[in-house]
């Protein structure tokens, strides 16, 4: 029973990731892709968590945390890039 639930949830997440990848490929605009990548990152968190359960280990909890942080930072960076044209504003010229 437990295993069935796990497989079903993994399959669902995989389908979701796959659809996100399609969105990533098709586009049509860059923000679409950025959002799909962000969601893909969150899906990765879910996949990692479920696989940790399958593998019966807690070695990957760090990975989950890191993925959360990175997805956030990455999305913010892309957003800032799209908004302002650069990620790190330097005030060297002023």
């Amino acid at each position, binding site marked *: 029973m437990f295993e069935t639930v796990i497989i079903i949830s993994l399959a669902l997440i995989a389908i979701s990731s796959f659809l996100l990848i399609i969105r*990533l490929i098709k*586009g049509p605009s860059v923000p679409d892709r950025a959002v799909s*990548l962000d969601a893909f990152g969150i899906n990765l968190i879910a996949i990692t968590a479920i696989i940790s359960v399958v593998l019966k280990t807690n070695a*990957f909890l760090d*990975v989950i945390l890191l993925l959360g942080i990175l997805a956030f930072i*990455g999305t913010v*960076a892309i957003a800032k890039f799209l908004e302002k044209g650069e990620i790190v504003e330097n005030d060297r010229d002023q």
Partner: protein
Amino acid sequence: MTLLHWAILAPFLFAIFVPLVYKVFPKLHTGWFVLLLPVVLFLYFLQFLLNRTHYETVIETVEWIPSLGINFTAYVDGLGLLFALLITGIGSLVVLYSIYYLSKEKEQLHTFYVYLLMFMGAMLGVVLSDNTIVLYTFWELTSFSSFLLIGYWYHREKSRYGAQKSMLITVFGGLSMLGGFILLYLMTGTFSIRETIAQVDTILSHDLFIFAMILILLGAFTKSAQFPFYIWLPDAMEAPTPVSAYLHSATMVKAGIYLVARFSPIFAFSAEWFWSVSLFGIFTLFWGSFNAVKQTDLKAILAFSTVSQLGMIMSLLGVGAAALHYQNFEYYTVATLAAIFHLINHATFKGSLFMVVGIIDHETGTRDIRKLGGLMSLMPITFTIAVIGAFSMAGLPPFNGFLSKEMFFTSMLRVLEMNMFQADTWGMLLPIIAWIGSVFTFLYSMVLVFKTFTGKLQKEKLEKMPHEAPIGMLIPPIVLASLVVIFGFFPDLLAYTLIEPAMKSILPSLLAESEHFHVHIEMWHGFTPELFMTIGVVLLGTILFLTLTKWKKVYGLQPEKLTLNTFYDSSLVALDSSSSRFTKFYMTGFIRDYLVYIFAFLIVMLGASMASLGAFSLDVSKTAPVGIYEVILALVMIAGTLTTLFSTSRLTAIIALGSVGYSLSLFFVLFRAPDLALTQLIIETVSVALFLLAFYHLPELKRREQKLRFRLVNFIISLGVGVIVTLIAISANSERVSETIASYFIENSYKLGGGKNMVNVILVDFRGFDTMFEITVLGIAALAIYSMIKLRLSRREEG
């Protein structure tokens, strides 16, 4: 180191002090200091003749590289001694001559004498070495110092051209010769010439024999200016005249003759040697003398004359080899005798003629025979020397050239009586060509004397009023000319002292240990065919000389495009342009092309070697079962990869690449590698950010985004690389033979390393060195990025 070794090396040691003397004693002509050495050396070598029975040989060995069998073995036998005396004797005269020829004020005397001494030492080394490698070393030194001497007036274009040409040709020959020596070493296992001669039977039956012979002959022919390699010699006439007299008539060009004579005991038994040496020689004789007639520059006449005379000596050495096959060898050794005798004669008269030409050049300012004439009464001594030298060269009595010319005809006629190597049919060629060549020799000798010294004085064409040269300049040619006469009247002076021992070195197998040749040279043989041939030469030569203007058009028949010089020049140009075209063809400057080469080679080399060794094996029994997660993840990754490849915008490609990286980190999760997954995630995020940074800063012009163009070659190569790498990976996995060392780390990471995280223990403990240098790599990368951003030397002005 014995005295003999010091004698060979003395010129090099002396050369060190020449610049010092030049600087310290500016009032002294450096030549006076230099003159000491060849005179002392000449006396030293002379005492070999006088103090002991001259058939004795002297061998002194100094170890140089004994582990390779390379020793500096000095070996003085008849042949070596003859050459050593020529080198030091004519060397002394040339140095004396150069003191008066080269001006102390205008010329850089120290470089001249350093080069000259270098050459002298190298030449002594060539003729007195018993070890082939040492011989080769000195041989290249002669090429090198000759190059320096030809290019002595380096500000002249023609000097540089001549120097380069002679360097290329003689070094080509020298390298061939080295190849021949190595082949000889392979056959016999020794570098010593004497030991090689002792094993002559092994060599004669060896497969490599013919190659060694051809390679060594190439070395001899290039150095001795034989056809078709003679072309460097006329261009070497740009050197100062003492150099021409010394190197390009008396010594260096005879190094090839020496080589042929020295290796005669090894190769002379074969028909190939007989025919190649004598035919190349006889043709060079004809071609050199034929071309000498058309020259208008005195030195060019002498250059072609040298070519021709060297051809004569060479052909005599070839013909002399036939004596080895006969019982009554005395009858045929006359050719070898003539070769050695003419070698000495040629050194005397050609040296004096070059000095005469130098005097004329010095006193009138030109060497062009069209501008010269009527110098007889103005320069009587020079004229006398020139007549003696030229008549001896033409082969007229009572000079020594007559004797050697007679013997030359004798030996060529005796070829007709040989009954081997098809000499009875083809041998006919030799005396005929020899005779025609001698007619032209007579002709150019007469041109040399009469066009220069008789006729009308053309004052308006000369730069200065000609007058007799200073006495110091005249002494060396006078000495040489007197030797011409002395050897003409008393040839037996040479016979017992020099010629017999030299013949014994060239043809050692004919005699028992204590025997020696009996040589007796006479002026008068009676009414022999040779005498009538000489009379014919004189008659026809005189007729041709008187009618020279009428038939000189013959020389226009050979078109300019078909000469060997044109061939040499155009082949140099062709070599240059074709290699640069070839380089331009594949060095396109595009990284894309180079990557194509690299990957194509990767595919071909790996694929071919794996296939030829039968190393491809697709054994799946050792692979782990494939789970559903891996399949899904792989599909996601493939989708990401394909997106990267076929995306139309760069941004899409970067993001898709990011998704591939994240999927990879998921693979690490799946395959239980938490540390890798962590690192991969961070690195992937950072590098995507860097990609975005790079993407944004693309220059405006090229920013127009384009779909990747499809290229068939690239497609094939990328497919090939993928397939090859995959196949190799699978093969490597299925062929795995030994156990992994992982169990050691599993057992010991806590026991020895004190850590439960095995990956980290390996990184910092078991394999800490790798980590240290990876840290270094990151440090260097960081510093490099910083300096690339900060340091903008070339664009500072732009701000």
